[in-house]
């Protein structure tokens, strides 16, 4: 039985772990390698590093963090933030990352997805999408007419691209993405539960795995996600970062409701 994955995310700025709340107000704590090792001990199924520096210097620091983590942690590692070219992919893969997530750069130049998938395989290309509710679908020919519409945001949630999230996910899959990491900007940092509506819309449109992000708060919110959507994994940062729950706590809560976890 394939397990639902619980994935802690570490936001890294200049080599240090920070956690943003609703994509703004950043508070700093911790050494990323030590944090990753702790999450591994808690049975994290994967670990995601998000480089929020995204400068040349930041990139070099991030490479060192990935290299050091890969020597000590033996679960899949994903790295994202400021990845723009297949050379960026190669750099991080050589440092020990297993998957690379792309966000804004893929919106600006969708061909990046196919280039990376062709060079390194779809399995390592994660399309990260930041979505925000934006009215309703107004196209009368669209089967989702009248339902909620979500727009893709870029630049760490600062810029509305005007692109429909569901369309973009579908296109990402066609271009060669191996997985979708879907963050709801409406629920991110609120701990009010995942954005089940947006997740169901995207899960219904693609056949690749979808990682849900944004809003994971109390223990039942994770079980609820897996009961009410076909999402394959849940990603969260603050609940783990501030020690509210361990990865194991969340898995125990899921297991108690009959959800397969490792």
């Amino acid at each position, binding site marked *: *039985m*394939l*397990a639902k*994955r619980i994935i802690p995310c570490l936001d890294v700025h200049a080599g240090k772990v920070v956690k943003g709340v609703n994509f703004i107000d950043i508070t700093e704590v911790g050494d990323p390698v030590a944090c990753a090792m702790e999450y*591994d001990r808690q*049975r994290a*199924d994967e670990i995601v590093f998000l480089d929020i520096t995204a400068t040349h210097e930041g990139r070099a620091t991030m490479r060192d963090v990935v290299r050091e983590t*890969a*020597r*000590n942690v*033996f*679960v*899949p590692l994903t790295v994202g933030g400021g990845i723009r070219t297949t050379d960026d992919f190669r750099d991080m*893969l*050589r440092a*020990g990352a*297993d998957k690379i997530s792309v966000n804004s750069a893929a919106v600006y130049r969708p061909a990046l997805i196919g280039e990376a998938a062709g060079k*390194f*395989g*779809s*399995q*390592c290309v994660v399309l990260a999408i930041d979505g925000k509710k934006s009215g309703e679908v107004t196209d009368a020919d669209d089967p989702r007419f009248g339902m909620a519409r979500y727009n893709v945001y870029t630049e760490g949630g600062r810029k509305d691209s005007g692109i429909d999230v569901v369309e973009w996910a579908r296109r990402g899959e066609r271009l060669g993405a*191996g*997985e979708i990491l879907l963050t709801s900007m409406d629920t991110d940092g609120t701990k009010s539960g995942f954005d089940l509506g947006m997740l169901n819309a995207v899960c219904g449109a693609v*056949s*690749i*795995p979808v990682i849900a992000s944004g809003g994971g708060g109390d223990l039942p919110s994770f079980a609820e996600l897996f009961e009410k959507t076909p999402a*394959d*994994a849940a990603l969260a940062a603050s609940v783990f970062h501030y020690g509210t729950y361990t990865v194991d706590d969340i898995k125990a809560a899921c297991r108690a409701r009959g959800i397969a976890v*490792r």
Partner: protein
Amino acid sequence: MIAVIDYDAGNIFSVKNALDHLGFESVQACRPDDVVKADKLILPGVGAFPDAMRSLRERGLADAIVREAKRKPLLGICLGAQLLFEKGYEFAETDGLGLIPGYVDAIVAPGMKIPHMGWNSVRVTNPSPLTKTVHDGDMLYFVHSYKAVTDERYISLASEYGQPLPALVRGGADGQIYGAQFHPEKSGSVGLGILRGFAEL
């Protein structure tokens, strides 16, 4: 010394990291010579079957592996495990290394997501030195869209994803040829136990 075969088809660093962590020395092997000198061979791999076989042949590694696998343990990982079989049907029919009877074909699992990606449980069907520390129900990390089709006697660990899925296969005259469809180097302590079992053969 364990040679991790580097033929431009995958992340050999993760495998080396895991071996370092376990305290086993390994070298990166790019040439047939390196394969001859090693005591044990690991063949990693991600990507497509035909490209990987072409890459192994172009470097003279395919012949060296087939020859050396008669006298030293070999562990294929992921695509590397698939290459051990006689044929692959990814894009086009392609000859594999032919070290274990069987072929490699697409996973057909209606209503389920492809690739088969994530942690899945395994059952020990034929115990082997690599499965000493594995228990029924233990989970390993998989990422693949193709699977081996082979006789049950070659399957040491079995998994399931809409259909039966060989997880660890074993062949060769003295049972020293192994293929792990999962990533032992990314499967936490259970995976490291399997890798240790191989390194200690």
